[in-house]
């Protein structure tokens, strides 16, 4: 029944999806945290930059960003991100686009987490003489991160699904393989079911696991 799968590297395609997700997740967590720190910082210029970045990037379709990294950054401006084969260049460009986009959502999730930290915590921290970076790093962010495991899990799941957009610039991940298979094989329904099942296997355990973690680590107030 599943003999149409022969000759296709199904696991390899999903492995590319996982790699895309992994690197984009790490990158957007770092860049998103920096953006969140900027948005709550006492420096007006940084706050302004963070606000403008988030509001612009969030409203551009991810597809536009990803296609731009290829047509604009690579083909027009010659940005290769230190890679020399097309395959690696496209992969890195896709990760870059994904980070730029997802960081905006990570930033907003973190910011809502910062809002959950009670004022008294911060006042106490200031009373013992901590300064803004210390207040942020030692008192606020650790509590904020624990409060936003759930929302961040949703960002991660959305990111996993969004990696399919990378097929628009020729990264050969799951959606690209599905497109090829649909063109060459007759079993439309079965092929779609296989890929749907693959994504459910990727997203559902992450959702359940992180949902459980978020209950475990949430700060009881």
């Amino acid at each position, binding site marked *: 029944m599943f003999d149409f799968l022969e000759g296709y590297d199904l696991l390899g395609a999903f492995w590319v999806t996982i790699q895309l997700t992994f690197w984009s997740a790490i990158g957007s967590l770092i860049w998103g945290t920096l953006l969140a720190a900027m948005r709550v910082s006492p420096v007006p210029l940084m706050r302004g930059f963070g606000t403008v970045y988030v509001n612009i990037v969030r409203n551009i379709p991810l597809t536009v960003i990803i296609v731009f990294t290829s047509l604009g950054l690579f*083909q027009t401006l010659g940005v290769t991100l230190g890679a020399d084969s097309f395959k690696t260049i496209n992969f890195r460009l896709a990760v870059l686009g994904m980070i730029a986009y997802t960081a905006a959502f990570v930033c907003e999730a973190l910011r809502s987490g910062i809002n959950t930290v009670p004022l008294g915590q911060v006042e106490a921290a200031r009373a013992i003489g901590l300064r803004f970076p210390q*207040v942020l790093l030692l008192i606020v962010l650790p509590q904020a991160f624990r409060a936003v495991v759930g929302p961040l899990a949703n960002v991660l799941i959305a990111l996993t699904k969004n990696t399919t957009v990378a097929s628009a610039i020729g990264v050969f991940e799951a959606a690209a393989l599905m497109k090829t298979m649909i063109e060459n094989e007759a079993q439309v329904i079965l092929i779609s079911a296989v890929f749907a099942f693959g994504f*459910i296997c990727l997203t559902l355990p992450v959702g359940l696991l992180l949902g459980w973690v978020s209950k475990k680590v949430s700060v009881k107030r």
Partner: protein
Amino acid sequence: MTRPTVLYDAPGPRARRHNLLLTVLFLIALAGVLWWVFASLADKNQLAWDKWEPFFTTSGAWTTFLLPGLKNTVIAAALAMVLATPLGALFGIARLSDHGWVRAAAGTVVEFFRAIPVLILMLFANAAYAKFTDVSPDSRPLYAVVTGLVLYNGSVLAEIVRAGILALPRGQTDAAKAIGLRKNQVMRYVLLPQSVNAMMPAIVSQLVVIVKDTALGGALLGFSELLASVRPMSANYGANTIACFTVVAVIFVLLNLALTTFAGRLERRLRSGKRSTGAVVTAGAVEELSTPGEHVSRDDLDGPGPQAGH
């Protein structure tokens, strides 16, 4: 002027010096990045006026490429919205049913379509229309895009509807039952009309997600929407890729910012309204607080949160 907030006091002389230093450093870094961007743009001759001129001095670029693309984007988004909303309402209500099997069936369908990338759904719809129906190849991309969007956003809207009904004060149901209304009367006359109000901000915000996802059809299914107009346009006006992308991105941002602002206004109006029940489902409430497989609890539904924009 820096005002005191949760995180920092009103700055004293030392903090002011410190902030000034940070401002200057950040400004230098920002200027460096901008300089690099503009230098590489100028280097590739992307800043020349004749690359940008088609968008400002002539109407050709707008009437031939941008406006028809925008029209298709809006048509697909509007169709998807109109078709997904009733579907979402149906499944959202079914998930609140008293019968276990109805709840389970609706829940499975909703969680299934929420777990799958919308692109996979579009690719499936495209192939299925080609194989099983006689939809003409010209209109197939639009059909495929709308079908994918309806399946995915229908399930997200189902969660919004469920959240909207759950967010109503319990007293509404109790009172309705006390005056002898039956189950479906409670839903039709009391809960649904009020929750529609509460859900409006979330529904408008979901429209932003739909508008953004139409671009997938342009990149991968040959649907001639706004993003798809970049290639023919830059070919026509002498490889002005950067200018084309900038204009297309600006249009998307303006369209979506308008929707986001509208949703925010609606939310504030509902929150301050005297006649409302006080229940408001915001954009973030559903996407961010219910991971797949997890149930939305009453306390989770309200609160500050980012846009659901994935």
